[in-house]
């Protein structure tokens, strides 16, 4: 029989035939590993879980033209295509034009209302969202200035002077204006600049201005952490000519701050749990060594070197750590799943890598916890112990 076989036989016999004592140590390690594995799962899954919640903060990425010109739909689509489709919550392109209403200059914005509802879910509407062409959403400030409310009709006048001069104009004729009537579907309350605008659909804006496929910017809501967003931004800016992508710092920084604090809290709890596990395992192992002083003395009397004693106790400790880690990695996932279902109301993703990592950490923690008890085992004097002192 090889020495290693006998070594394994001894440490497994010690664990299996001294179950009651070892179960306490195993329980301590398994509980520690469960919380470790569970919290690490939550730690890595929180950004994904929270990402969707954070999307109510508004868009977190903006596309603009990189050369002070305009954006086209194909450029926006190409840029959006660079982002993993499952991460794109919504896209809202905008085109801004100056119009007049009742002889007063007002900024009109053409957009995709379905996209806006996803990128800006915090917008509060008195009335309805526009659902068809010919309907407008009027900002609260403008609505008050023009005394407009939902259901009223408003006429937007667009001065075509920005377009190439017609033959009539060139010959000194009257400049042309486009006029369209809109029904006010709702009044927009955001507490921000949006309250100064009148929002109409892209189709209506094209018809009013006589120009199509022209956009000033696009807002995106992307479910991703700050680092991932940064990566998308640099990819898109490099890949799509004439388009510049950037993050909305106010939103991404808020997300990042909340996530950082949450993750720091989880990390802190994990470290505390690991320390408590170490103390618990060290105490149990110390009790095990004290209980087995006579056995250590006997082994030394039979010729065991200090190194052999260290190997045997560490072997037992590390085997316990491995088994506890395996149990903990499975229980940890169940724990994380329960937390996720209760807090985020969604299931959690299982990370296979967490099994070896949890086992490794458990083995390391148990190994560290065993250092002091094992050291005390090497100090046992065989003569004293065998005399029962």
């Amino acid at each position: 029989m090889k020495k290693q076989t006998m070594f394994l036989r001894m440490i497994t016999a010690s664990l299996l035939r001294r179950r009651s004592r070892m179960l306490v140590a195993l329980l301590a390690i398994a509980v520690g590993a469960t919380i470790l594995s569970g919290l690490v799962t939550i730690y890595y899954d929180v950004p994904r879980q929270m990402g969707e919640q954070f999307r109510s903060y508004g868009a977190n990425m903006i596309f603009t033209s990189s050369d002070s010109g305009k954006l086209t739909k194909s450029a926006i689509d190409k840029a959006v295509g660079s982002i993993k489709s499952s991460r794109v919550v919504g896209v809202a392109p905008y085109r801004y034009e100056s119009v007049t209403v009742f002889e007063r200059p007002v900024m009109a914005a053409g957009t995709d209302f379905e996209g806006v509802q996803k990128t800006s879910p915090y917008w509060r509407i008195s009335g309805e969202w526009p659902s068809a062409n010919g309907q407008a959403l009027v900002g609260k400030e403008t609505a008050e200035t023009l005394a407009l409310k939902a259901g009223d009709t408003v006429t937007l006048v667009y001065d075509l002077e920005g377009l190439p001069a017609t033959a009539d104009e060139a010959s000194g004729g009257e400049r042309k204006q486009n006029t369209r009537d809109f029904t006010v579907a709702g009044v927009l309350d955001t507490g921000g600049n949006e309250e100064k605008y009148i929002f109409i659909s892209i189709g209506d804006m094209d018809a009013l201005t006589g120009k199509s496929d022209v956009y000033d910017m696009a807002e995106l809501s992307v479910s991703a952490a700050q680092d991932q967003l940064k990566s998308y931004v640099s990819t898109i800016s490099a890949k799509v000519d004439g388009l510049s992508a950037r993050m909305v710092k106010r939103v991404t920084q808020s997300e990042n701050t909340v996530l950082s604090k949450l993750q720091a809290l989880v990390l802190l709890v994990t470290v505390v749990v690991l320390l408590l596990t170490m103390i618990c395992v060290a105490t149990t192992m110390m009790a095990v060594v004290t209980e087995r002083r006579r056995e250590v003395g006997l082994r030394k009397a039979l010729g065991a070197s200090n190194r052999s004693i260290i190997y045997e106790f560490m072997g037992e400790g590390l085997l316990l750590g491995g088994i506890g880690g395996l149990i903990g990695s499975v229980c940890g996932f169940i724990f994380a799943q329960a937390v996720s279902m209760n807090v985020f109301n969604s299931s959690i993703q299982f990370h296979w890598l967490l099994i070896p990592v949890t086992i490794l950490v458990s083995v390391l923690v148990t190994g560290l916890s065993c250092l002091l008890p094992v050291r005390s085992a090497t100090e046992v004097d065989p003569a004293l112990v065998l005399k029962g002192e």
Partner: protein
Amino acid sequence: MSLLEIKNVSKIYGPLKALDNVNLTVENGEWLAIMGPSGSGKSTMMNIIGCMDKPSLGEVILDGVDIAKQSSKKLTEIRRDKIGLIFQQFHLVNYLTAVENVMVSQYYHSMPDEKEALEALERVGLADRAKHLPSQLSGGEQQRVCIARALINHPEIILADEPTGNLDEANENIVIDIFKQLHRQGTTLIVVTHDPEVAEVAQRTVALEHGRLVKEIINNNFEE
């Protein structure tokens, strides 16, 4: 050359002399009994011969090596290679079976060999109890496992401390018979005891009192 020579050995603990200028020689293959009442220095003597302690003064030459001058690491090696220990309280590892307890001694000495360990148990009449845990064995059986463990590495000396102290008469006789058998095979035996019946079956008996060797008796009725 004698197997063991103890020359002017004293062991001093503060004001107490546990051993006081002891001189003793043990020949190869001899069966020696060390007797004495409690506190006479028997255990100290046993610890020193068993390389678990060092004398304060004097020399202890075991197989040509002065163990008084060796490091504790070297003493562990000498104990492992040259001495088989038998204890009054058996001291078996309680979660290992009888055969595994014998193999532990092989494990620290050289290479565990289950077949050889089973043969050692057979020698002490415990072949059928090899897979039993100590808690499933009687005191006599546990002591026989202890003897098998002491024999397994073919030591120069079997050092037994009150080997029959915890045994009934029947088991005491079994153990003494095993000792006789070992002696016939040429094993050197040093048995520390306070039991005159155990001492009188030895070839020679020395008596300790207050740390001094006070008497030496050669057993003229010794049965080879």
